[in-house]
């Protein structure tokens, strides 16, 4: 067989993969499609916030507490921010910070987890015991405590949550990697004399990716909700940055007067987590269904 023939076959192989993705998306249930569309809209809002929002993020030129009008679709808050613009800018801050935190925690947690599963011995024992101790403290409580010690601020927030969340990721990554490590194909690679890098990146990682991706979706939701809760409690993202959690907190007194304004940012949070959950749920059913249908 010539190299050209092989090359065409390779490309054909790739195309079927792409076709697979399209086919999978076409077969997705409505709930998952709804989730994906919502996520897409949020992503667009976050990326193009300055172009979409009618007013700048920290603009307070308007009067406070204006009712909704053509200029201010949702009115203004007590300090005179255009509420709608704040809502859009908050997407950028809240989602961005949650995403960075989740990525960081994932990188740290899964690296440690896979290493522990592969090495076993003292490394696994040591890290596992430390993680067990951290797991015994609820994330929100620990985050509150640490923020009071090292002070509020976005950097501190990301670091603390990423560290705490990494312990949860570690547990899962270690468990799924342990399942993969005992497989005969890993032993076979070992017997061949393969190095650690090959075993991790060619034999183990491709096989534990589906549960890890699912977990990433759930971890993102958790981190996102925790940041929202901390901001709501006044120790998360700080003004003048717009953020949904603190927007609820800043305007919460309006509720008693019958204004639904603080419900909007809370709804924005809920809608995104519901959307991510719907997609994750579909993904979970698909991957576990494949395993059963063997």
């Amino acid at each position, binding site marked *: 067989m010539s*190299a050209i023939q092989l090359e065409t*076959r390779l490309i054909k192989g790739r195309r079927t993969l792409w076709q697979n993705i399209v086919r999978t998306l076409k077969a997705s249930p409505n709930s998952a499609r709804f989730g994906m569309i919502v996520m897409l809209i949020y992503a667009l809002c976050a990326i193009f916030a300055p172009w979409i929002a009618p007013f700048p993020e920290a603009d307070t030129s308007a009067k406070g507490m204006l009712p909704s009008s053509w200029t201010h679709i949702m009115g203004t808050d007590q300090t005179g921010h255009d509420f709608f613009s704040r809502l859009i800018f908050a997407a950028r801050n809240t989602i961005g910070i949650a995403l960075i935190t989740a990525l960081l925690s994932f990188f740290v947690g899964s690296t440690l987890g896979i290493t522990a599963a592969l090495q076993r011995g003292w490394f696994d024992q040591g890290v596992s015991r430390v993680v067990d101790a951290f797991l015994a403290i609820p994330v929100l409580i620990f985050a509150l405590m640490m923020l009071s010690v090292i002070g509020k601020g976005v950097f501190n927030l990301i670091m603390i949550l990423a560290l705490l969340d990494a312990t949860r990721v570690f547990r899962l990554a270690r468990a799924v990697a342990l399942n993969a490590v005992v497989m*005969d194909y890993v032993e076979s690679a070992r*017997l*061949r*004399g393969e190095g650690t890098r090959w075993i991790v990146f060619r034999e183990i990682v*491709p096989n534990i990716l589906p549960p890890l991706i699912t977990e990433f979706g759930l971890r993102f939701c958790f981190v996102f909700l925790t940041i929202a809760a901390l901001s709501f409690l006044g120790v998360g993202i700080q003004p003048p940055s717009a953020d949904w959690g603190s927007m609820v907190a800043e305007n919460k007194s309006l509720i008693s007067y019958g204004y639904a304004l603080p419900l909007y940012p809370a709804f924005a949070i809920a809608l995104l987590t519901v959307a991510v959950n719907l997609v994750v749920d579909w993904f979970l059913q698909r991957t576990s*269904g494949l395993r059963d*249908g*063997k």
Partner: protein
Amino acid sequence: MASETKRVKGDVLLEMKGIVIDGKSDDKWNPIIRGVDLTLKRGEVLGLIGESGAGKSTLGLAGMGFARPGCRITSGSIIFDGIDLIAASEEKRRGLWGSRIAYVAQSAAASFNPAHHIIDQTTETALGHGIMPRDKAEADARDLYRRLQLPNPDTIGLRFPHQVSGGQLQRAMTAMAMSCRPDLIIFDEPTTALDVTTQVEVLAAMRDIVEQFNTAAIYITHDLAVVAQMAHRIMVLRYGNLVEEAPTRTMLKQPTQAYTKSLWAVRSLAKKERSSDDIVLDVQNVSASYGNHIKVLDDVSVKIPRGRTVAVVGESGSGKSTLARAITGLLPPSTGKILFNGQALPGALKNRERDTLRRIQMIYQSADTALNPRQKVRDIIGRPLEFYLGLNGADRDRKVVELLESIELDESYIDRLPSEMSGGQKQRVSIARALAANPEVIICDEVTSALDQIVQEEILKLLMKLQADTNVTYLFITHDIATVRAIADEIVVMHKGKVVQQGLKSKVLNPPYPAYTELLLSSVPQMDPDWLTGLLKKRQSAQA
């Protein structure tokens, strides 16, 4: 018992007609059973055989009017002793289950509730159907335990399921099924999980008790020799269809269908043994253990001649797989040494040279776990070529195609994932991966036991062909004597971590035997329907 009808041997007890059963997979219903008729007379034992996926368990359970979750009986009729089981209410069916139709499952350990005493589970059926009072039911259970030759029949019922052995539990489950003296018992692969020496006792006990009470039975198994001992009549199933049906002796002597004949084939495969004095691998007084516990290998010495097939046989826990791990370096021996081409092999894997690793390859029992599900055949077979021989790009692919040809797969397989191949094809790819390294020794760890009978034969033939072509040495680990007969030159018998015997096939398989070899060999079911009777007679007279 509960039945008012007069029980006459020879009357039709169960009549199933045009049975179609669907199973759900990927949200779609696909047929598992495609229109099968089954008739069973009182006191008759019907053997239901077929390979995995043939639908034999599904059909057996349908005989009770039961479909597992995810299955549904879409058409056909099931008449049990005049009662239409499909039309019957759930209440009515439940009244029959346990009392008139009983079920014996494959895994006794999983099918007994861990939370209750064995005797309470044995008598539960009789008590639940209000057939006898507790004291009578318990006395009866003890009687059944005695008839099934369980040790300490008076007290064994007071134990919990996890406190007795697998073979004993399987007999206790038979007692449970027998407690209401049902008209029909469905045996669903009851001895598949047992070791061969344990299997004999369980088979004998089950056969006797079914005979004593004149109970009809459907005996489901994939093992022809087992069904030959148990059944009066045999039905062969494949892909949910009935292939052939005949009385046992007729079926064994004159199978009419090509498929049925092929099921017999592996038994007739027998390689002529060849001796050799050129030793490639010399295991000398090796002991090994996991952690600091009991020795799994105890002073094991084995010589493996070049270009030959040495079969290591033994039951679970005999240490045969551990021997493979010691040779490959996964479990360094605590004492003793292993010579490879006359030179001592370093004990641990990481101390061995790449070229040494290349020379000893391994093939696993289950290709499902031995092939990375995310790699295509190109990479699975190509990696050893790249890793050991430095082949890349088109050279590598050319060699992969060559190897595919040698395992009788065409080049289109190069882009397949393991999930896109059948069990036999996957095992072929495993073989090609081992061959790619151009090894001197291949360790085959139960390579055929996860495969269907016909596929087993093909794989064994392929392995022999490859040996003839390349003069590779096989260390063949198995528990299946038929496979040993088919492929071995020499045999090593292992028991509890020790070597009982090593020698040429003709020597080991013929008397005089050491005691354990005799027990092991005599326990292997033969295709002769009189084998079990004969064996029991022989053992009895030996005891007397």
